[in-house]
């Protein structure tokens, strides 16, 4: 008996010892590798001009092929684009030296620089540009080039892009679509990208990390940071890794942004990553979606209700209370972008004004239950939100609280997207969008976009707005289109925002929050689109390491 006990104990202890030995062995071995190779020094220890580690998510599981949508946010790293947006979102040349749009708006002629070469040494010509656009139009990825009829190379440095219809937003394809080499764009391209961008791929451990190195053949200024390691981990792990000093840039949720990390500063970047309440615009049971789901809601079909909600909400309180101050009030779909109409903004947090609007429209609390009614209909609706999104949940709950004093009863319910989809044309839903591409605004409000899915889910329809949006889309250039995009928001008489039809109650724009090493200068950031993380890389070739 005694002997067996002892043996068991010894056995257990030896296993424990063995596992301890293995665990404590690992850190020492990291140091030995560091000695062998100074480059490996930062195997997660600290940053330098040689190498920084970023934990900002954004892995593209299907690889790094722009014709499938890679590079639609932030830097495409490996490839370069014809145009790009600078920190003020103004359009500037990259590969292109000039571009013109024909009078009918259908032919875009782009001339490109002649000194660009791919990372394999081959020159980049107009034929590659034409190939990239034609390929993207056919490949069924996340870049929408369906308006392109054909792209043809006129000579080595000139390419004609011929559209089926004029489309002012087509310029966004010139901004996001990285040019791929026709000679090396095969089946394995997405995992071995070759391009003319500032960086080239060294190694991609799928699901873990992407290691890239400065491309010596890059035609622009060689990036000052030699090597970038993108760590693909969840936000919580990113924060933990930043705290351990293993990463130099970490994207964190607003709730973690209030913490401090030694040696790092918090950077909060304004974004157009918005959250808002979508109202069903039509009365209940006016029609059905192609899938047979109900459309319309009698309460939110009343303009007075939609306007009252917009005026009653205290957006700054939402920013302070829910986003910890890392955000800003949103009054329209593009608040903060260059094509925002500032006149459309309202003075909110005015429950008295909201009550007036309701009273004028004939909503009154006759039975004294605190909820106004009109023709026997209570001012009551349900706000749906994605159940696992704590920010949307808090926004929905806080909004419902703010509407109570006005006499509007908002019931709040969390569901998954699959459950929300059949209900989203007849209930109020917390949605979040935000893009540098105005196509989004078009699809949010254009009457024909409403086809029973997320585009114009509320079935908003106003002929005047439709024609303004058509003018914006058909304008030959973004600069000319901007006037129409603004007019669609509010032109003094009509618009989609509160003073007009109040089709949505936009609530807030989230700030994107990052912990960044004090030694790292990331320059000036753009107003970022929806999608936390990757957009910060837009100007990554200009980042600098300021310590020795």
């Amino acid at each position, binding site marked *: *008996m005694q*002997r*067996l*006990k002892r043996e*068991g104990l010894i056995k257990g202890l030896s*296993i424990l010892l063995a*596992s301890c030995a*293995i*665990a404590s*062995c*690992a850190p020492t*071995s*990291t140091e030995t*590798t560091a000695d062998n190779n100074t480059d*490996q020094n930062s*195997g*997660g220890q600290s940053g330098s001009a040689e*190498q920084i580690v970023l934990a900002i998510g954004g892995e593209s*599981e*299907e690889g790094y092929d722009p014709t*499938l*949508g890679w590079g*639609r946010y932030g830097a495409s790293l490996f490839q370069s684009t014809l145009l790009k947006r600078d920190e003020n979102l103004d359009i500037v040349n990259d590969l292109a030296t000039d571009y013109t749009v024909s009078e009918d708006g259908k032919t875009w002629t782009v001339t490109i620089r002649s000194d660009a070469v791919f990372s394999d040494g081959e020159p980049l010509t107009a034929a590659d540009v034409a190939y990239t656009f034609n390929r993207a139009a*056919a*490949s*069924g*990825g*996340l870049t*929408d080039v*369906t308006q392109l009829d054909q792209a043809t190379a006129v000579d080595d440095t000139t390419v004609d892009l011929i559209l089926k219809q004029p489309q002012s937003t087509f310029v966004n394809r010139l901004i996001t679509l990285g040019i791929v080499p026709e000679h090396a764009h095969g089946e394995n391209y997405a*995992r071995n990208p070759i391009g003319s961008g500032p960086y080239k791929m*060294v*190694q991609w*451990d*799928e*699901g*873990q*990390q992407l290691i890239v190195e400065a491309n010596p053949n890059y035609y622009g200024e060689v990036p000052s940071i030699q*090597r970038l390691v993108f*760590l693909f*981990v*969840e936000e919580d*792990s990113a924060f*933990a*890794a930043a705290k*351990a000093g*293993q*990463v130099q840039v970490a994207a964190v949720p607003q709730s973690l942004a209030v913490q401090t990390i030694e040696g790092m500063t918090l950077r909060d970047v304004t974004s157009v990553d918005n959250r808002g309440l979508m109202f069903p615009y039509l009365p209940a049971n006016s029609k059905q979606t192609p899938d047979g789901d109900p459309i319309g809601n009698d309460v939110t079909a009343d303009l007075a209700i939609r306007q009252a909600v917009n005026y009653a909400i205290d957006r700054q309180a939402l920013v302070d209370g829910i986003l910890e101050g890392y955000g800003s009030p949103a009054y329209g779909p593009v608040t903060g972008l260059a094509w925002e109409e500032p006149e459309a903004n309202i003075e909110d947090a005015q429950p008295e004004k909201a009550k007036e609007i309701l009273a004028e429209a004939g909503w009154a609390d006759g039975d004294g239950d605190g909820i106004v009614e009109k023709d026997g209909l209570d001012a009551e609706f349900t706000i749906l939100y994605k159940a696992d999104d704590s920010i949307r949940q808090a926004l929905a709950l806080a909004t419902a609280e703010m509407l109570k004093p006005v006499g509007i009863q908002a019931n709040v319910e969390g569901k998954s997207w699959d*459950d929300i989809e059949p209900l989203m044309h007849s209930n109020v839903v917390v949605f*979040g*969008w935000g*893009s540098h*591409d105005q*196509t*989004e605004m078009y699809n*949010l409000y254009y009457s024909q976009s409403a086809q029973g*899915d*997320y*585009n114009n889910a509320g079935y908003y329809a106003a002929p005047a707005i439709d024609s303004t949006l058509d003018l914006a889309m058909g304008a030959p250039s973004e600069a000319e289109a901007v006037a129409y995009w603004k007019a669609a928001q509010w032109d003094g008489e009509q618009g989609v925002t509160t003073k007009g039809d109040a089709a949505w109650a936009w609530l807030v724009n989230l700030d994107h929050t990052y912990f960044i090493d004090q030694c790292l200068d990331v320059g000036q950031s753009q107003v970022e689109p*929806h999608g936390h993380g990757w957009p910060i890389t837009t100007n990554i070739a200009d980042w600098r390491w300021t310590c020795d």
Partner: protein
Amino acid sequence: MEARRKGQIQIKVILVFVAQKLLRLGLLLMAVAVFTFVLLSFSPIDPVQAYIGADMMQISADQQAIIAERWGLDQPLWSRFLDWLGQLLQGNMGTSLVFNQPVSVVIANRFQASLQMLAIAWFLSGFLGLTLGIVSGALAGSWVDRLVRLYAYTLASAPTFWVALLLLIAFAVSWKIAPICCAAPPGVLSQNVTFWQHLHHLLLPAITLSIIGIANIALHTRQKLIEVMQSDYVLFALAQGESLWNIVRYHGFRNILLPAITLQFASLSELFGGSVLVEQVFAYPGLGQATVQAALRSDIPLLVGIVFFSALFVYTGNTLADLAYPVIDPRIRLRGQAHS
């Protein structure tokens, strides 16, 4: 003459055995494929919408149609199934929607990462489970036995992902002796990853995974050993003055080996299932993580591929257990010969 006849019969027996096994495997895989296709057709997740995600507003209906066409989603389910079956017969498992890569390549890459973890977990849980089971069975009722039972019951009733999270918090976040994620340290090229770094990243997920198996095997082994210890022949051995250790060694061990082996191989399926959760928690890029992504994005080719693969994996495990019986237990071997 007699020996040759015997040999022929044995070959025949083996051939029938193999044919039966293969037939069953084929039927099983077929059923699995049909079930996966049908179940996924009931899934509310639209793969095209899952792929587009938050870019919904920038992707026109035309582009959505091109995406659906690229994946053949414009075809009805039965025609996709037939297409898939036809391709499978030619050895092509299709292309994964999520990874834009042949399914066989995805599975091969991912399984390489998972295999080491599964192997360590499997050996650890088998070895420790058996050891703990024997110790607590032999010393039934003692404090050691109580301790082992407490441990086993606690872990048997604890969800895998919860145990994984606790271990991650303790070892990686608080004590910082284990890495937070991944299969290698960040920024290190794969050819420069040392064996120790590799093990360092592998060990915690593997141990977590083994912990689940230990409880099951330990409890079953314990129960079986207690049965043996109460038998007449053990009483007889005791009466002859045999020591406890020798009784366990000569009478107990052999009798509990068969159920232990059955359990050990049957635990392959549990390990495989557990790896889905453990890999998710530890951000370990193995087959389990790919399974989650395939399911969340309705990636039918990949999911069917993985389900196929796991069915094959578990089936092979169980067959190995079947084959091990006659090797270990002469009674089964002799009975088989007596029949023929």
